[in-house]
């Protein structure tokens, strides 16, 4: 990996992006996006995460200039108001789920396209295309037709094509969704390394929380056209703003408890407690529920299902009352359906929703 090349000749400007009251109502009155205010720092990778129809792609297309926000909304690249500029004059790089490579051009011609449109001299163009292809490990494919490439190679060509023109911002719309799981992981690592190395401001749209956690400096969780939460992956995971975020990111257990006078009652156990008083709903991650013995356990239950995942065994435990709980046990755990288990809850790792 020519890291030095990436660092030296391919460091791109880190342009901040500001969205001001950017809403989108489509013809026919459907509200795709509630007015949104968001500042994306220069060089930051921000991930829009949410189920389909949540407004994440609309937001990306507003930043790209493929959709214009409802009147009153503004898009700023640095200090420049680009709201009225169409995409071809915004100097953005775009990468699509479907690759969107030009089928009538070779790999090198695809990558050269943006430079050709910009009327860069042929020699300079050739040098920059070559440099970019090397950076993306595509040198040997320069003369190939697009239909001779695998999905992962195609997406690398799309990245090269978007980056070679030195865009002010890189926009990625579900770039890994069309790939199979193994390729997805390796290309995700490559994209991560690329984005860090280039220092470019990047906006990444996905419905896959794993991708969002791995790539995002910050994640914007969206639902039904609204922002549910903005935060770092850790904040989103450990301090979800509401039940939707908690359920959308990872697996979350819900436990009923009663807090009174500095203690919390769960099942038969009483724990020290400093959270809100009264009947509370507790949110607990599977990895924060520990298996314990009958003596030190807080909650008893029966294993309803055990799924061996290699590095761990995921148990579904049915307590005496309340909804089933998902618990991670060691991979080598021999527990199976019908076994009686006890669970411990660490009150410091529990999130209470009054």
């Amino acid at each position, binding site marked *: 990996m020519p890291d030095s090349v990436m660092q030296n000749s391919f460091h791109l400007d880190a342009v901040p992006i500001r969205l001001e009251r950017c809403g989108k109502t489509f013809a026919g009155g459907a509200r795709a996006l509630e007015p949104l205010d968001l500042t994306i720092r220069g060089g930051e990778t921000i991930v829009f995460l949410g189920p389909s129809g949540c407004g994440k792609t609309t937001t990306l297309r507003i930043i*790209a200039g493929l959709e214009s926000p409802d009147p009153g909304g503004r898009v700023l690249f640095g200090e420049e108001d680009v709201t009225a500029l169409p995409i*071809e004059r915004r100097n*953005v790089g775009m990468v699509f789920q479907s690759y*969107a490579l*030009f*089928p*009538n051009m070779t790999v090198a011609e695809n990558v050269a396209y943006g430079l050709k*449109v*910009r009327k860069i001299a042929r020699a300079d163009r050739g040098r920059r295309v070559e440099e970019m292809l090397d950076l993306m490990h595509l040198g040997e494919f320069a003369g190939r037709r697009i239909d001779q490439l695998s999905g992962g190679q195609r997406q690398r060509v799309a990245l090269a094509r978007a980056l070679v023109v030195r865009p002010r911002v890189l926009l990625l719309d579900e770039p890994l969704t069309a790939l199979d799981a193994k390729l997805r992981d390796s290309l995700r690592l490559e994209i991560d390394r690329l984005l860090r190395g280039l220092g470019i401001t990047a906006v990444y749209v996905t419905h896959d929380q794993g991708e969002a956690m791995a790539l995002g400096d910050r994640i914007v969780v969206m639902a039904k056209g609204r922002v549910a939460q903005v935060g770092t992956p850790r904040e989103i995971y450990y301090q979800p703003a509401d039940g939707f975020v908690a359920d959308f990111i990872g697996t979350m257990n819900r436990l009923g408890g009663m807090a009174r006078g500095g203690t919390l009652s769960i099942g038969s156990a009483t724990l020290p407690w400093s959270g809100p008083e009264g009947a509370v709903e507790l949110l607990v991650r599977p990895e924060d529920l520990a298996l314990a013995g009958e003596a030190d356990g807080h909650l008893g239950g029966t294993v309803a299902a055990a799924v061996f995942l290699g590095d761990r065994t995921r148990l579904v435990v049915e307590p005496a009352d309340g909804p089933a709980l998902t618990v991670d046990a060691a991979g080598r755990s021999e527990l199976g359906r019908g076994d009686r288990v006890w669970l411990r809850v660490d009150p410091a790792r529990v999130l209470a929703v009054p």
Partner: protein
Amino acid sequence: MSACAQDAPLPHRPAARPPVRPGWAGEPLRLAALLAPAAVVFAAFFLLPLVRLILIGAGGTAGWSAYLTTLADPGHLDSLISTLALSAGVTLVTLAVSTVAGLFLVRNRFPGHALLVALLTFPLAFPGVVIGFMVIMLAGRQGLIGTITQALGAGKLVFAYSMAGLFLGYVYFSIPRVILTVMAAAEKLDPRLEEAARSLGASSWRVVADVILPALKPALISAGALCFATSMGAFGTAFTLATRINVLPMTIYTEFTLQANIAAAAALSVLLGLITWAALAVARSVAGTSVAAAG
């Protein structure tokens, strides 16, 4: 052809087969029997007339050299060249008009959209005679255009009974076929490709030249080939407009019915068929998709 099918056992079926499935033993024979009606029809109504036509072409006083000398006749050569030029012109203009209109119709929804598409494809229902009649109504001696130009004091403009009238008529009835093909192909264009090109700085014209036209190319070639072939062989419109119009089908008609020069008519027919078939074959190899001949 039918004899061959009867004699030769089908290559993938061993002649001596253990009688596991007794019903299959006589299959080659049965297949041949099933094929026979189709083969008979094909031979009787396609092969025999074609062979006969070719033989008649060579049956005149000049023999087989008639195929060369027919073209040496300046009238015939002239007719061939003007037919080729007319068909090529009709094809280019039709492609240009239909591509613009087809793309517009696919990309824009407006009240009356379906009605407009229906209207544009209406000429499909008309025979050539009716098209010719409509051209006369438009540009003939009592036509609309002539009346208007006369009212404007520019003299009566009449062009229905010439190549210009024929050109107009052919474009009119070629547009529906091409527009439908273009629309079908344009529906399948990936809008992401255009967005990608635009994100790289391409103007609308560049997107058309670099993305849309290359993607439509196979459809345009195949529709253009059909349009060309149809214009080469169409007769009804030319016949309605004027019997003096110098296109190949009219020349064949004249040689056949008025001059009773049956050998020349046959030779010209074969030539017309060959040229049209060659145009379709070239288009098929360039486009890589199936291009069907039309009548």
